Protein backbone atom coordinates (compact mmCIF):
# COMPACT_ATOMS: atom_id res chain seq x y z
CA UNK A 1 0.00 0.00 0.00
CA UNK A 2 1.31 3.46 -0.72
CA UNK A 3 2.28 5.72 2.11
CA UNK A 4 -0.47 8.28 1.84
CA UNK A 5 -3.28 5.88 2.65
CA UNK A 6 -1.97 5.37 6.18
CA UNK A 7 -3.11 8.65 7.70
CA UNK A 8 -6.73 9.75 7.52
CA UNK A 9 -6.14 13.18 9.00
CA UNK A 10 -7.18 14.75 5.73
CA UNK A 11 -10.75 13.76 6.54
CA UNK A 12 -10.84 16.27 9.35
CA UNK A 13 -9.88 19.23 7.17
CA UNK A 14 -12.71 21.76 6.84
CA UNK A 15 -12.59 22.42 3.13
CA UNK A 16 -15.10 25.27 3.37
CA UNK A 17 -12.52 27.37 5.18
CA UNK A 18 -10.32 27.33 2.08
CA UNK A 19 -13.10 28.37 -0.28
CA UNK A 20 -12.24 31.88 -1.42
CA UNK A 21 -15.90 32.59 -2.21
CA UNK A 22 -17.08 31.67 1.23
CA UNK A 23 -19.74 34.03 2.55
CA UNK A 24 -18.54 36.02 5.53
CA UNK A 25 -20.98 38.12 7.50
CA UNK A 26 -20.22 41.78 7.78
CA UNK A 27 -18.42 42.68 10.97
CA UNK A 28 -20.30 45.17 13.04
CA UNK A 29 -18.54 46.56 16.09
CA UNK A 30 -19.96 44.76 19.05
CA UNK A 31 -17.10 44.88 21.46
CA UNK A 32 -18.75 47.42 23.67
CA UNK A 33 -22.02 45.65 24.10
CA UNK A 34 -22.19 44.50 27.66
CA UNK A 35 -25.70 43.22 27.88
CA UNK A 36 -28.36 44.44 30.29
CA UNK A 37 -27.29 46.04 33.52
CA UNK A 38 -27.33 43.35 36.18
CA UNK A 39 -27.45 45.63 39.20
CA UNK A 40 -30.31 47.68 37.83
CA UNK A 41 -32.36 44.63 36.94
CA UNK A 42 -31.75 42.95 40.30
CA UNK A 43 -32.84 46.00 42.23
CA UNK A 44 -36.00 46.32 40.15
CA UNK A 45 -36.89 42.68 40.80
CA UNK A 46 -36.34 43.14 44.52
CA UNK A 47 -38.58 46.18 44.53
CA UNK A 48 -41.28 44.12 42.88
CA UNK A 49 -41.32 46.34 39.80
CA UNK A 50 -41.46 43.49 37.32
CA UNK A 51 -42.57 45.59 34.32
CA UNK A 52 -39.59 47.86 34.85
CA UNK A 53 -37.31 44.86 35.22
CA UNK A 54 -38.57 43.50 31.91
CA UNK A 55 -37.88 46.77 30.09
CA UNK A 56 -34.46 47.02 31.70
CA UNK A 57 -33.39 43.50 30.89
CA UNK A 58 -34.30 43.95 27.22
CA UNK A 59 -31.98 46.94 26.88
CA UNK A 60 -28.51 46.58 25.35
CA UNK A 61 -28.91 43.12 23.90
CA UNK A 62 -25.50 41.55 23.24
CA UNK A 63 -26.27 40.83 19.61
CA UNK A 64 -23.04 41.76 17.89
CA UNK A 65 -20.54 40.70 20.49
CA UNK A 66 -18.50 37.55 20.08
CA UNK A 67 -18.00 37.17 23.81
CA UNK A 68 -20.00 34.11 24.81
CA UNK A 69 -19.89 34.97 28.52
CA UNK A 70 -21.73 38.22 27.94
CA UNK A 71 -24.39 36.39 26.00
CA UNK A 72 -24.78 33.70 28.67
CA UNK A 73 -25.02 36.27 31.43
CA UNK A 74 -27.67 38.19 29.53
CA UNK A 75 -29.69 35.05 28.92
CA UNK A 76 -29.49 34.05 32.60
CA UNK A 77 -30.69 37.49 33.64
CA UNK A 78 -33.61 37.43 31.23
CA UNK A 79 -34.63 33.99 32.47
CA UNK A 80 -34.57 35.28 36.04
CA UNK A 81 -36.90 38.15 35.17
CA UNK A 82 -39.26 35.96 33.14
CA UNK A 83 -39.50 33.39 35.95
CA UNK A 84 -40.35 36.00 38.56
CA UNK A 85 -43.51 37.05 36.72
CA UNK A 86 -46.85 35.66 37.88
CA UNK A 87 -48.66 33.70 35.17
CA UNK A 88 -51.49 36.20 35.02
CA UNK A 89 -49.13 39.12 34.51
CA UNK A 90 -47.29 37.66 31.56
CA UNK A 91 -49.78 39.00 29.05
CA UNK A 92 -49.52 42.53 30.42
CA UNK A 93 -45.77 42.24 30.29
CA UNK A 94 -45.85 41.37 26.62
CA UNK A 95 -48.32 44.17 25.83
CA UNK A 96 -45.96 46.71 27.32
CA UNK A 97 -43.33 45.93 24.71
CA UNK A 98 -43.08 47.46 21.26
CA UNK A 99 -42.57 45.45 18.08
CA UNK A 100 -38.79 45.27 18.37
CA UNK A 101 -39.15 44.36 22.01
CA UNK A 102 -41.39 41.42 21.19
CA UNK A 103 -38.91 40.23 18.54
CA UNK A 104 -36.05 40.47 21.05
CA UNK A 105 -38.08 38.68 23.71
CA UNK A 106 -38.78 35.85 21.27
CA UNK A 107 -35.04 35.57 20.55
CA UNK A 108 -34.30 35.21 24.25
CA UNK A 109 -37.12 32.67 24.65
CA UNK A 110 -35.72 30.42 21.94
CA UNK A 111 -32.22 30.84 23.35
CA UNK A 112 -33.61 29.70 26.67
CA UNK A 113 -35.18 26.63 25.08
CA UNK A 114 -31.75 25.60 23.85
CA UNK A 115 -30.48 24.96 27.33
CA UNK A 116 -33.34 23.90 29.59
CA UNK A 117 -32.97 23.94 33.34
CA UNK A 118 -35.50 22.62 35.86
CA UNK A 119 -38.51 24.78 35.41
CA UNK A 120 -37.36 27.06 32.65
CA UNK A 121 -39.15 25.43 29.74
CA UNK A 122 -42.57 25.64 31.36
CA UNK A 123 -42.16 29.33 32.09
CA UNK A 124 -40.74 29.99 28.65
CA UNK A 125 -43.63 28.18 27.00
CA UNK A 126 -46.13 30.45 28.75
CA UNK A 127 -44.18 33.49 27.59
CA UNK A 128 -43.92 32.00 24.09
CA UNK A 129 -47.68 31.67 23.81
CA UNK A 130 -48.26 35.30 24.75
CA UNK A 131 -45.43 36.60 22.61
CA UNK A 132 -46.77 34.61 19.65
CA UNK A 133 -50.19 36.19 19.91
CA UNK A 134 -48.55 39.62 20.00
CA UNK A 135 -45.91 39.14 17.33
CA UNK A 136 -47.46 36.52 15.11
CA UNK A 137 -45.63 33.90 13.11
CA UNK A 138 -43.47 36.62 11.54
CA UNK A 139 -41.79 37.10 14.91
CA UNK A 140 -40.66 33.47 14.97
CA UNK A 141 -39.51 33.70 11.34
CA UNK A 142 -37.30 36.61 12.36
CA UNK A 143 -35.73 34.54 15.13
CA UNK A 144 -34.97 31.82 12.60
CA UNK A 145 -33.52 34.11 9.94
CA UNK A 146 -31.46 36.38 12.17
CA UNK A 147 -27.76 36.02 11.42
CA UNK A 148 -26.67 37.70 14.65
CA UNK A 149 -28.69 36.78 17.68
CA UNK A 150 -28.51 37.01 21.45
Amino acid at each position, binding site marked *: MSKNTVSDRFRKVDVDEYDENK*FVDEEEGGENQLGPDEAEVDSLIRQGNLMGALQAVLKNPPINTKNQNVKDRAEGLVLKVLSSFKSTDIEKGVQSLDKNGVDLLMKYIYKGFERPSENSSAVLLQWHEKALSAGGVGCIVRVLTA*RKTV
Partner: protein
Amino acid sequence: MSYHSFLLEPISCHAWNKDRTQIALCPNNHEVHIYKKDGSNWNKIHVLKEHNGQVTGIDWAPESNRIVTCGTDRNAYVWTLKGDAWKPTLVILRINRAARCVKWSPKENKFAVGSGSRLISVCYFEQDNDWWVCKHIKKPIRSTILCLDWHPNNVLLAAGSCDFKCRIFSAYIKEVEEKPAPTAWGSKMPFGEVMFESTGTAGWVHGVCFSDSGNRVAWASHDSTVAVAEGGKTAVCASLTSETLPLLCVTFITENSLVAAGHDCYPVLFVYDSNKAALSFGGKLDIPKQSAQKGMSARERFQNLDKKATTDSKEAVLESVHKNSISQLSILNGGKAQCAKFCTTGMDGGMTIWDVKTLESAMKDLKIV
Protein backbone atom coordinates in the same frame (compact mmCIF):
# COMPACT_ATOMS: atom_id res chain seq x y z
CA MET B 1 -61.83 37.72 -8.57
CA SER B 2 -61.66 34.56 -10.58
CA TYR B 3 -59.70 31.47 -9.77
CA HIS B 4 -58.70 28.93 -12.34
CA SER B 5 -56.93 25.72 -11.48
CA PHE B 6 -54.54 24.87 -14.25
CA LEU B 7 -52.71 21.93 -12.80
CA LEU B 8 -52.09 19.88 -9.72
CA GLU B 9 -48.41 20.73 -9.82
CA PRO B 10 -47.08 24.11 -8.78
CA ILE B 11 -46.83 26.79 -11.43
CA SER B 12 -43.13 27.68 -11.36
CA CYS B 13 -43.49 30.94 -13.24
CA HIS B 14 -45.85 32.66 -15.68
CA ALA B 15 -46.04 35.54 -18.14
CA TRP B 16 -48.90 37.21 -20.03
CA ASN B 17 -48.95 38.42 -23.60
CA LYS B 18 -49.74 42.02 -24.51
CA ASP B 19 -53.55 41.82 -24.71
CA ARG B 20 -53.78 39.34 -21.83
CA THR B 21 -55.45 36.65 -23.90
CA GLN B 22 -52.61 34.18 -23.60
CA ILE B 23 -50.59 33.02 -20.63
CA ALA B 24 -47.28 31.15 -20.77
CA LEU B 25 -46.52 29.09 -17.72
CA CYS B 26 -44.22 26.35 -16.55
CA PRO B 27 -45.95 23.37 -14.95
CA ASN B 28 -42.97 22.54 -12.75
CA ASN B 29 -41.14 20.65 -15.48
CA HIS B 30 -38.87 21.33 -18.45
CA GLU B 31 -41.58 22.75 -20.68
CA VAL B 32 -43.49 25.96 -21.15
CA HIS B 33 -47.19 25.69 -21.90
CA ILE B 34 -49.09 28.51 -23.56
CA TYR B 35 -52.81 28.68 -22.86
CA LYS B 36 -55.29 30.81 -24.74
CA LYS B 37 -58.45 32.16 -23.22
CA ASP B 38 -61.60 31.06 -24.97
CA GLY B 39 -64.65 32.44 -23.26
CA SER B 40 -64.27 31.09 -19.77
CA ASN B 41 -62.03 28.18 -20.74
CA TRP B 42 -58.33 28.00 -21.15
CA ASN B 43 -57.01 25.90 -24.02
CA LYS B 44 -53.44 24.78 -24.35
CA ILE B 45 -52.27 25.96 -27.76
CA HIS B 46 -48.49 25.61 -27.63
CA VAL B 47 -45.92 23.54 -25.79
CA LEU B 48 -42.37 24.89 -25.83
CA LYS B 49 -39.88 22.11 -25.32
CA GLU B 50 -36.24 23.01 -25.39
CA HIS B 51 -34.97 23.28 -21.84
CA ASN B 52 -33.24 20.37 -20.14
CA GLY B 53 -34.00 21.58 -16.68
CA GLN B 54 -36.93 23.17 -14.85
CA VAL B 55 -37.91 26.50 -16.34
CA THR B 56 -37.45 29.04 -13.56
CA GLY B 57 -38.32 32.29 -15.31
CA ILE B 58 -40.54 33.39 -18.22
CA ASP B 59 -41.03 36.91 -19.51
CA TRP B 60 -43.16 37.94 -22.50
CA ALA B 61 -42.23 41.17 -24.24
CA PRO B 62 -45.49 42.96 -25.08
CA GLU B 63 -44.38 45.01 -28.08
CA SER B 64 -42.03 42.69 -29.90
CA ASN B 65 -43.99 39.56 -28.89
CA ARG B 66 -40.93 37.57 -27.92
CA ILE B 67 -40.74 35.21 -24.98
CA VAL B 68 -37.55 34.72 -23.01
CA THR B 69 -37.24 31.70 -20.73
CA CYS B 70 -34.47 30.62 -18.42
CA GLY B 71 -33.96 27.41 -16.52
CA THR B 72 -31.92 25.28 -14.22
CA ASP B 73 -30.06 23.91 -17.26
CA ARG B 74 -28.04 27.17 -17.17
CA ASN B 75 -29.49 28.34 -20.49
CA ALA B 76 -31.87 30.98 -21.71
CA TYR B 77 -33.88 30.87 -24.92
CA VAL B 78 -35.52 33.71 -26.80
CA TRP B 79 -38.65 32.47 -28.59
CA THR B 80 -40.13 34.21 -31.64
CA LEU B 81 -43.44 33.36 -33.19
CA LYS B 82 -42.91 32.21 -36.78
CA GLY B 83 -46.24 31.49 -38.37
CA ASP B 84 -47.95 29.18 -35.97
CA ALA B 85 -45.00 27.94 -33.96
CA TRP B 86 -42.56 29.38 -31.47
CA LYS B 87 -38.92 29.03 -32.55
CA PRO B 88 -36.17 29.16 -29.91
CA THR B 89 -32.82 30.90 -30.11
CA LEU B 90 -30.22 29.84 -27.58
CA VAL B 91 -28.53 32.56 -25.53
CA ILE B 92 -25.18 31.65 -24.02
CA LEU B 93 -25.24 33.05 -20.51
CA ARG B 94 -21.79 31.83 -19.45
CA ILE B 95 -23.02 30.79 -16.03
CA ASN B 96 -22.15 27.61 -14.20
CA ARG B 97 -25.20 27.41 -11.96
CA ALA B 98 -28.93 27.52 -12.57
CA ALA B 99 -30.63 30.63 -13.91
CA ARG B 100 -33.31 31.85 -11.50
CA CYS B 101 -35.19 34.77 -12.98
CA VAL B 102 -35.38 36.71 -16.23
CA LYS B 103 -36.84 40.07 -17.22
CA TRP B 104 -37.08 42.00 -20.49
CA SER B 105 -36.06 45.63 -20.22
CA PRO B 106 -38.82 48.22 -20.85
CA LYS B 107 -37.59 48.90 -24.41
CA GLU B 108 -37.18 45.16 -25.03
CA ASN B 109 -33.71 45.51 -26.49
CA LYS B 110 -32.08 43.69 -23.61
CA PHE B 111 -32.95 41.27 -20.87
CA ALA B 112 -31.34 40.38 -17.56
CA VAL B 113 -30.98 36.91 -16.05
CA GLY B 114 -30.29 36.33 -12.36
CA SER B 115 -28.52 33.13 -11.50
CA GLY B 116 -27.04 30.99 -8.77
CA SER B 117 -23.56 31.78 -10.08
CA ARG B 118 -23.73 34.96 -8.04
CA LEU B 119 -24.00 37.19 -11.09
CA ILE B 120 -26.49 38.88 -13.39
CA SER B 121 -26.20 38.31 -17.15
CA VAL B 122 -27.37 41.31 -19.14
CA CYS B 123 -28.00 40.13 -22.71
CA TYR B 124 -28.43 42.20 -25.86
CA PHE B 125 -28.65 41.35 -29.55
CA GLU B 126 -25.58 42.02 -31.64
CA GLN B 127 -26.74 42.80 -35.18
CA ASP B 128 -23.38 42.10 -36.87
CA ASN B 129 -23.11 38.56 -35.58
CA ASP B 130 -26.85 37.89 -35.46
CA TRP B 131 -26.37 36.56 -31.96
CA TRP B 132 -27.33 37.34 -28.38
CA VAL B 133 -24.32 38.45 -26.35
CA CYS B 134 -24.14 38.87 -22.59
CA LYS B 135 -22.23 40.98 -20.12
CA HIS B 136 -21.86 40.04 -16.47
CA ILE B 137 -22.48 42.07 -13.34
CA LYS B 138 -20.50 40.31 -10.61
CA LYS B 139 -19.34 42.65 -7.87
CA PRO B 140 -20.39 42.89 -5.08
CA ILE B 141 -22.95 40.09 -5.32
CA ARG B 142 -22.16 37.24 -2.94
CA SER B 143 -24.99 34.82 -3.41
CA THR B 144 -27.80 33.73 -5.73
CA ILE B 145 -29.88 36.45 -7.37
CA LEU B 146 -33.52 35.62 -6.75
CA CYS B 147 -35.44 38.43 -8.42
CA LEU B 148 -34.99 41.33 -10.84
CA ASP B 149 -36.89 44.42 -11.91
CA TRP B 150 -36.02 47.11 -14.48
CA HIS B 151 -36.30 50.84 -13.95
CA PRO B 152 -38.43 52.63 -16.59
CA ASN B 153 -35.30 54.33 -17.98
CA ASN B 154 -34.13 50.95 -19.40
CA VAL B 155 -30.76 51.24 -17.65
CA LEU B 156 -31.14 50.66 -13.93
CA LEU B 157 -31.83 47.17 -12.66
CA ALA B 158 -32.92 46.23 -9.15
CA ALA B 159 -31.79 42.82 -7.93
CA GLY B 160 -32.70 40.93 -4.79
CA SER B 161 -30.24 38.36 -3.62
CA CYS B 162 -29.66 35.58 -1.11
CA ASP B 163 -26.88 37.60 0.48
CA PHE B 164 -29.66 39.52 2.25
CA LYS B 165 -29.36 42.65 0.13
CA CYS B 166 -31.40 44.47 -2.45
CA ARG B 167 -29.23 46.42 -4.87
CA ILE B 168 -29.76 48.71 -7.84
CA PHE B 169 -27.19 48.26 -10.61
CA SER B 170 -26.62 50.11 -13.79
CA ALA B 171 -27.03 47.83 -16.79
CA TYR B 172 -26.09 50.46 -19.35
CA ILE B 173 -24.99 48.85 -22.61
CA LYS B 174 -23.44 51.42 -24.88
CA GLU B 175 -23.94 49.29 -27.98
CA VAL B 176 -27.70 49.51 -27.83
CA GLU B 177 -28.56 52.78 -26.17
CA GLU B 178 -27.73 56.40 -25.49
CA LYS B 179 -26.27 57.61 -22.23
CA PRO B 180 -29.08 57.86 -19.68
CA ALA B 181 -30.17 61.08 -18.06
CA PRO B 182 -29.56 61.49 -14.31
CA THR B 183 -32.14 59.90 -12.05
CA ALA B 184 -33.03 60.03 -8.38
CA TRP B 185 -30.58 57.18 -7.82
CA GLY B 186 -27.55 58.98 -9.20
CA SER B 187 -26.17 60.47 -12.38
CA LYS B 188 -23.06 58.49 -13.25
CA MET B 189 -24.16 55.06 -14.45
CA PRO B 190 -21.36 53.02 -15.99
CA PHE B 191 -22.13 49.35 -16.50
CA GLY B 192 -22.15 47.39 -13.26
CA GLU B 193 -22.16 50.42 -10.98
CA VAL B 194 -24.00 49.91 -7.68
CA MET B 195 -26.40 52.82 -7.30
CA PHE B 196 -27.98 51.58 -4.10
CA GLU B 197 -27.46 48.77 -1.63
CA SER B 198 -29.89 48.01 1.17
CA THR B 199 -29.00 47.62 4.81
CA GLY B 200 -31.08 46.66 7.78
CA THR B 201 -33.13 43.72 6.62
CA ALA B 202 -31.93 40.19 7.20
CA GLY B 203 -33.28 37.32 5.16
CA TRP B 204 -33.12 36.45 1.46
CA VAL B 205 -34.73 39.00 -0.77
CA HIS B 206 -37.48 37.15 -2.60
CA GLY B 207 -39.17 39.91 -4.54
CA VAL B 208 -38.17 43.36 -5.73
CA CYS B 209 -40.11 46.01 -7.63
CA PHE B 210 -39.58 49.56 -8.90
CA SER B 211 -42.51 51.96 -8.70
CA ASP B 212 -43.95 53.35 -11.91
CA SER B 213 -41.80 56.48 -11.80
CA GLY B 214 -38.74 54.48 -10.84
CA ASN B 215 -38.07 56.68 -7.83
CA ARG B 216 -38.99 54.04 -5.30
CA VAL B 217 -37.99 50.44 -4.93
CA ALA B 218 -39.70 47.90 -2.70
CA TRP B 219 -38.47 44.49 -1.64
CA ALA B 220 -39.81 41.58 0.36
CA SER B 221 -37.40 39.53 2.38
CA HIS B 222 -37.48 36.20 4.12
CA ASP B 223 -37.52 37.64 7.64
CA SER B 224 -41.16 38.60 7.04
CA THR B 225 -40.38 42.22 6.27
CA VAL B 226 -41.23 44.54 3.42
CA ALA B 227 -39.12 47.63 2.84
CA VAL B 228 -39.28 50.65 0.54
CA ALA B 229 -36.40 52.93 -0.33
CA GLU B 230 -36.68 56.21 -2.18
CA GLY B 231 -34.01 57.50 -4.53
CA GLY B 232 -32.34 60.63 -3.28
CA LYS B 233 -33.29 59.83 0.28
CA THR B 234 -31.50 56.51 0.28
CA ALA B 235 -30.32 56.84 3.83
CA VAL B 236 -33.87 56.25 4.95
CA CYS B 237 -35.49 52.92 4.19
CA ALA B 238 -38.96 52.37 5.47
CA SER B 239 -39.43 48.81 6.52
CA LEU B 240 -42.28 46.96 8.10
CA THR B 241 -41.96 43.75 10.01
CA SER B 242 -45.09 41.73 9.49
CA GLU B 243 -46.78 39.11 11.61
CA THR B 244 -47.25 36.74 8.75
CA LEU B 245 -45.09 34.18 7.03
CA PRO B 246 -42.50 35.53 4.58
CA LEU B 247 -43.74 37.21 1.40
CA LEU B 248 -42.41 35.98 -1.92
CA CYS B 249 -43.42 38.62 -4.42
CA VAL B 250 -44.21 42.31 -4.27
CA THR B 251 -45.41 44.89 -6.75
CA PHE B 252 -46.50 48.52 -6.76
CA ILE B 253 -50.08 49.08 -7.82
CA THR B 254 -49.98 52.84 -7.47
CA GLU B 255 -47.09 55.10 -6.56
CA ASN B 256 -47.93 54.69 -2.87
CA SER B 257 -49.47 51.27 -2.54
CA LEU B 258 -47.90 47.84 -2.74
CA VAL B 259 -49.43 44.44 -3.02
CA ALA B 260 -47.40 41.48 -1.81
CA ALA B 261 -48.11 37.77 -1.47
CA GLY B 262 -46.27 34.75 -0.20
CA HIS B 263 -46.41 31.75 2.03
CA ASP B 264 -49.62 32.82 3.70
CA CYS B 265 -51.49 32.20 0.44
CA TYR B 266 -53.28 35.53 0.26
CA PRO B 267 -52.22 38.94 -1.10
CA VAL B 268 -51.81 41.83 1.32
CA LEU B 269 -51.77 45.56 0.80
CA PHE B 270 -49.16 47.95 2.15
CA VAL B 271 -49.28 51.73 2.02
CA TYR B 272 -46.15 53.88 1.86
CA ASP B 273 -46.21 57.38 3.25
CA SER B 274 -43.45 59.40 1.67
CA ASN B 275 -43.56 62.30 4.12
CA LYS B 276 -43.12 60.11 7.15
CA ALA B 277 -41.00 57.57 5.25
CA ALA B 278 -43.15 54.90 6.82
CA LEU B 279 -44.75 51.75 5.56
CA SER B 280 -48.00 50.53 7.03
CA PHE B 281 -50.18 47.48 6.65
CA GLY B 282 -53.24 48.19 4.52
CA GLY B 283 -55.23 44.99 4.80
CA LYS B 284 -55.61 41.40 3.74
CA LEU B 285 -56.87 41.19 0.17
CA ASP B 286 -58.70 37.92 0.25
CA ILE B 287 -62.46 37.75 0.47
CA PRO B 288 -63.13 34.56 2.37
CA LYS B 289 -66.07 32.50 1.31
CA GLN B 290 -68.84 32.71 3.87
CA SER B 291 -68.67 29.37 5.60
CA ALA B 292 -71.99 27.60 5.44
CA GLN B 293 -71.91 25.80 8.71
CA LYS B 294 -71.69 27.82 11.87
CA GLY B 295 -71.66 26.16 15.24
CA MET B 296 -70.93 22.56 15.89
CA SER B 297 -72.98 19.79 17.29
CA ALA B 298 -71.96 18.25 20.59
CA ARG B 299 -70.92 15.11 18.73
CA GLU B 300 -68.51 17.06 16.52
CA ARG B 301 -67.04 18.75 19.55
CA PHE B 302 -66.41 15.43 21.22
CA GLN B 303 -64.87 14.05 18.04
CA ASN B 304 -62.57 17.03 17.80
CA LEU B 305 -61.53 16.60 21.38
CA ASP B 306 -60.87 12.95 20.79
CA LYS B 307 -58.89 13.41 17.56
CA LYS B 308 -57.14 16.71 18.01
CA ALA B 309 -57.27 17.33 21.77
CA THR B 310 -58.97 20.64 21.19
CA THR B 311 -62.52 21.92 20.97
CA ASP B 312 -61.46 24.62 18.55
CA SER B 313 -63.83 24.67 15.63
CA LYS B 314 -61.29 26.12 13.22
CA GLU B 315 -60.83 23.65 10.42
CA ALA B 316 -57.49 22.72 9.02
CA VAL B 317 -58.61 24.04 5.67
CA LEU B 318 -57.29 27.34 4.39
CA GLU B 319 -59.96 29.94 3.81
CA SER B 320 -58.02 31.77 1.17
CA VAL B 321 -58.52 31.34 -2.56
CA HIS B 322 -55.09 29.86 -3.13
CA LYS B 323 -54.49 26.68 -1.22
CA ASN B 324 -50.73 26.92 -1.24
CA SER B 325 -48.04 29.60 -1.32
CA ILE B 326 -48.32 32.30 -3.94
CA SER B 327 -45.05 32.48 -5.81
CA GLN B 328 -45.60 35.17 -8.45
CA LEU B 329 -47.64 38.34 -8.90
CA SER B 330 -48.11 40.11 -12.20
CA ILE B 331 -49.96 43.27 -13.18
CA LEU B 332 -52.59 42.79 -15.88
CA ASN B 333 -54.18 46.17 -16.45
CA GLY B 334 -53.30 49.69 -15.59
CA GLY B 335 -49.55 49.34 -15.16
CA LYS B 336 -47.79 50.05 -11.89
CA ALA B 337 -49.30 53.50 -11.67
CA GLN B 338 -52.97 52.72 -11.60
CA CYS B 339 -53.32 48.98 -11.51
CA ALA B 340 -56.81 47.73 -12.12
CA LYS B 341 -56.22 43.99 -12.20
CA PHE B 342 -53.42 41.75 -11.06
CA CYS B 343 -52.81 38.03 -11.24
CA THR B 344 -51.28 35.57 -8.81
CA THR B 345 -50.03 32.04 -9.43
CA GLY B 346 -48.93 29.62 -6.83
CA MET B 347 -47.78 26.26 -5.72
CA ASP B 348 -51.31 24.92 -5.84
CA GLY B 349 -51.27 25.08 -9.64
CA GLY B 350 -53.93 27.75 -9.70
CA MET B 351 -54.13 31.25 -11.08
CA THR B 352 -56.32 33.98 -9.65
CA ILE B 353 -57.16 37.29 -11.25
CA TRP B 354 -57.88 40.00 -8.71
CA ASP B 355 -59.86 43.12 -9.51
CA VAL B 356 -58.73 46.13 -7.53
CA LYS B 357 -62.06 47.95 -7.68
CA THR B 358 -63.98 44.94 -6.42
CA LEU B 359 -61.53 44.47 -3.58
CA GLU B 360 -61.76 48.12 -2.64
CA SER B 361 -65.52 47.98 -2.40
CA ALA B 362 -65.57 44.64 -0.62
CA MET B 363 -63.19 45.59 2.16
CA LYS B 364 -64.48 48.56 4.04
CA ASP B 365 -61.25 49.86 5.52
CA LEU B 366 -59.19 49.36 2.42
CA LYS B 367 -57.79 52.52 0.96
CA ILE B 368 -55.61 52.45 -2.09
CA VAL B 369 -53.94 55.81 -2.31
